[in-house]
């Protein structure tokens, strides 16, 4: 039997307290996007050392010869396990894509891939995603986090009409 999701205000208080604990212990907040560019950097250097001539790849090897020995990388492993355990306990673990029911799966996969590539490219410019900037940056009163969040919301709203069918199930009573 599937449980209901938490009330958003309750969820926010829990998540906010966890984010505080994270800062209080690790001196930094949640993150995720860095894990993926670090993984790519490590893979490239393992394959061919000459990638170290790329200044961006090299920046991950300044403090350690392993780009994956990093707080955010280990935290990302935890996020995956946490999502898995919670879904199992709630009876929500299921192998399927998420979208409006009538939308094509292949198109959904295509946009997930293209959108993912754009998102990670963007986070290299913004030094973080909705966690590293949106939550951590806002919680530490950073001006940049607000610039990022407002402009991200604007970007999403501008293109939202094109992707409506993927996300919103229309009730077609009477119209069309």
């Amino acid at each position, binding site marked *: 039997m599937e449980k209901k999701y938490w009330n958003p205000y309750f969820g926010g208080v829990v998540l906010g307290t966890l984010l505080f604990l994270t800062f209080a*212990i690790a001196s*930094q907040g949640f993150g995720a996007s860095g894990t993926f560019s670090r993984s790519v950097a490590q893979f490239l250097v393992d394959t061919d050392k000459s990638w170290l001539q790329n200044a961006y790849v090299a920046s991950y090897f300044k403090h350690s010869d392993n780009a994956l020995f990093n707080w955010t990388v280990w935290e990302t492993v935890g996020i995956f396990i946490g999502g898995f355990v919670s879904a199992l306990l709630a009876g*929500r673990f299921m192998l399927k894509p998420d979208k409006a029911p009538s939308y094509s799966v292949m198109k959904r996969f295509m946009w997930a891939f293209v959108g*993912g590539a754009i*998102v990670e490219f963007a986070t290299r410019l913004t030094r973080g995603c909705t966690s590293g900037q949106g939550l951590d940056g806002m919680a530490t009163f950073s001006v940049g986090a607000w610039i990022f969040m407002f402009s991200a919301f604007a970007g999403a709203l501008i293109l939202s009409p094109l992707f409506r069918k993927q996300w919103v199930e229309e009730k077609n009573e009477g119209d069309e």
Partner: protein
Amino acid sequence: MDLILPLFKNGFMSNEANMFFAVVLGFTFGFVLERTGFTRSQIIANTFYFKDIAVPKIMGVTVITTTTWFILFSYMGWLDMSQLFTPATYVWPYLVGGLLFGIGMVMAGYCPGTAVAGLGTGKSDALIFLAGLLAGAFVYMILYPYVADFASSSKLGVLKLHDLFGGNEYTSYILTVALETGIILFLMLLQKLTNKGEK
């Protein structure tokens, strides 16, 4: 020496212990993301149509809660807020990067953290999204020689709200709480207007 938070920066914890707690704290983060519905791209994307605004509500309340703890602990002398990692501000890269990020998000529904937790719940689109992230990082590295100058342009360093508007950390706190509350109320109004006459 008095115990002052954060533990890691103030030398009360080894690097290895910090990595261990990274997994534990990540676990709790992923757990809560699942409990609140953040592991579903449809729920996240519905924010942009004002159909479901649980995501901005949770984000806003999270920031209010975290900053409240910061201010309390700092006031009591238990936390040194200057030791908390704060991302530097780069105006143009954040404006352009933010727009791109939003465009990617309305296509994909996920952001990196929610997709990792989403994969844990079995979402196949989250897996494809994560592959997309790797591809995006690769493209950035290849194009880095051409974007490096732009990426490090208009750097203002660590810039806090009270550096801009005057005052101190309390000013920033009050501004943050006011802004987050205002945004939540505004989105609730938009949700009401958008969904008028439906159902």
